[in-house]
């Protein structure tokens, strides 16, 4: 997705913005005329519509800076953080098309129900299984430990569901856990402090698990944080195969 700095300011005075409206599985696009501003993100465009044109438009945002992952939508058919997408970057002619994030149920207009995404996060055993408690010392782990580097490679995920929306495997198989949950499982699997690598491998090797991934790479292509869930999923595939062949689950750090 990164494509250099935004192009210089265009001459346009206004934007024609098609916005998906509806709820309960029914709806369609409505068109709004929105004035062009020098500093203008997609979130600013939907905000302008709600504040000036249609007070009933519903969208979701929180942090405004790409940390919370609440505001992702489909922008010209591609999943993006709307708070960090400058209009210049995505404008084709004078038109924009904005829709709720793909692969999730729509609550209303541009807002999706993210519960299925997080339910899968939980199903992938994507939470720490402690080996120590608040009365123990911190684990001495050096920053260059190879398992740590592997664990850290995906750690900046903000669960925005952009990869989940981008994934055709999710679209074709509603049971598939999806790139974000699997990447998180890989992060935890590689954590020397995590007790239950076997539970993680069990969770990711079932019917909706890592082996569904066809390595199409949309997750890595669209991740706004430039993470690579596809590599993490490949790691899980190797780990589950190794366990199948050797009967050994988690490698203990050397």
């Amino acid at each position, binding site marked *: 997705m990164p494509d250099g*700095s935004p192009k210089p300011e265009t001459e346009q005075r206004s934007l024609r913005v098609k916005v998906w409206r509806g709820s309960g599985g029914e709806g369609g696009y409505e068109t709004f005329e929105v004035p062009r501003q020098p500093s203008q993100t997609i*979130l600013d465009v939907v905000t302008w519509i*709600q504040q000036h044109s249609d007070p009933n438009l*519903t969208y979701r945002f929180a942090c405004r800076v790409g940390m919370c992952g*609440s505001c992702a939508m489909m922008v010209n058919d591609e999943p993006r953080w709307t708070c960090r997408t400058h209009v210049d970057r995505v404008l084709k002619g004078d038109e924009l098309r904005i829709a709720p994030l793909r692969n999730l149920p729509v609550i209303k207009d541009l807002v999706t129900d993210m519960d299925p995404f997080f339910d899968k996060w939980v199903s992938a055993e994507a*939470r720490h299984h402690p080996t120590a408690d608040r009365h123990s010392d*911190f684990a*001495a*782990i050096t920053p260059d430990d190879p398992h740590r580097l592997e664990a850290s490679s995906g750690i900046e995920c903000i*669960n925005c569901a952009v990869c989940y929306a981008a994934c055709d495997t999710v679209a074709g198989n509603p049971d598939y856990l999806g790139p974000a949950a699997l990447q998180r499982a890989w992060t935890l699997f590689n954590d020397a402090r995590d007790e239950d690598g076997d539970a993680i491998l069990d969770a990711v090797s079932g019917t909706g698990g890592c082996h569904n991934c066809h390595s199409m790479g949309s997750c890595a292509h669209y991740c706004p944080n430039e993470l690579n869930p596809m590599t993490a999923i490949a790691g899980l595939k190797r780990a589950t195969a190794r366990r199948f062949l050797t009967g050994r689950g988690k490698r203990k750090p050397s």
Partner: protein
Amino acid sequence: MTVQLERHDTDILILGSGGAGLFAALHAQQAAPEGTKITLAVKGLIGKCGCTRMVQGGYNVALGGGDTVERHFMDTINGGKWLPDQDMAWRLVSTAVERIHELENEVGCFFDRNPDGTLHQKAFAGQTADRTVHKGDLTGIEIINRLMEQVLSRPIERMQEHRAIGLIPSKDGDGLAGVLMIDMRKGCFRFVRAKAVLMATGGGPTMYRYHTPSGDKTMDGLAMAMRAGLGLRDMEMVQFHPTGLLAGDNTRMTGTVLEEGLRGAGGILLNGDGRRFMFDYDDRGERATRDIVSRAIYDEMRKSNTTPQGGVHIAMSHLGPDNVSQKFPGMVKRCADCGFDLAGGKVEVVPTAHYFMGGVMVDVDTRTTMDGLYVAGEDAGGAHGANRLGGNGVANSTVFGGIAGDMMGWDVSGRSLREADETILAAEIDRAMHPLGKTGGNVHELRRKLQDVMWDDVGVIRTASGMNRALVALEDIDAELMDTGVSADNLAFNLTWHDWMNLRSLLDISKVITQAGLARENSRGAHFREDFSEVGDLNSSYFTLAQMHGSNLEVTRAPVAFTIVKPGQTILPDSEPDTLVAAE
């Protein structure tokens, strides 16, 4: 018109899912008897709204290497300009040690390490030791992601996109019966009774033209607490961050933080004439503390020495664009996404309202004067006094959130649900429905008006005449708001209705900030009075206390109790050096 009211019961109800709310949920579950029902209600999505997630810097905790809890305590008291509640500050710094171990070992956070595998700690401004534990400059994401995973995988009832609008006392007045909420998705009211309620909705001074907090933060918690008659302390204390992005009035990017580290690394501030001005104000130049840099920028703005959008420039390019990109990748990328070249060019910045030190009066166990109500995190006052140190915010929310969970877990045993005062419940519903079906007015223009008033007259530099002018303007805005309507065609996820209620809360608390600002006739920490620019006698320090009496808000002064250390003294041994931080 009538709107549906649904009723629901639980045992423990937690409002908010930042560091305080999520920790409370985990601790309540550990402490409460088996079978206790715990409900987490939040205005947005669990773990996503609120501000803990946005923590960049880190978590202050004394972990040895010469640093001590006593030293952390003294830094907190000095940083708070002798106004903190000392027992709360002590509870904060001492419990932080256990809490950080819990975060690493039980919750699963992994903080940055030294080459030998021990935790890396750095020194923030105002600290005398390398004390701040962090995960790069995205510490909040690490903490909230991990807490969220733990909470989501436990049997805790979730009420997402449920906005709390009223604390409803019991019929006999002996405590809290429950909380009135709006199920935002459905657009109906839901009254949830509970035996114990934690309010951890976060403060968030978004009534200023420039502000950093998350968009959902609108002081709802403090406004509810005030209406319920609770005492609010230090309400004049609004912390401004000196470098918020300035990108025009029409973008939500404006006001968001450009991190402190930019100035620390050698970033310079230039006024509209392109002149470096910080040394006119302080010998440390751009490395002066947040309050001083904010006031200096504000002063340049008052003299109209400004950039095209009315702020100043921050410039980093003299440090080498590649070097800047390498050192601050997140900041550079964020600016680039939004059309600004931080590494090689100049970016317009402005002071921006960041954190609210004021809050509900609580004891060290998060209890309030209302039986059944607990308050933690930014909604609670006392721990920070006049100024919060960078790194003490997330320590505060996680420490006291956990304590609240413990207390509620223990307290619910043997307690029963209370009958609500139905008259107050009905009045709170009426209050929320006030704009529905009315026509006229524009809530968004009105919010801008409020933000201008607060910025101009109750902002970085204050005077009695300015604040008195603001009080009049706030009453005018209030009258206009009550005449401003919202279409009632569809209440499901009606953001404009919520914008009206957001403004209602912000306006209520703006008045309190202004009155408290008038009551403090000296300059301490975040509060600067041009007409009373002296710190004042430390030994007779007072804090402001705001409370409703009938329909009147009264602001009084109460003496600070120096329960642990008196001004001019220290609890550090005589042999201890002033600072352990190596000079640059």
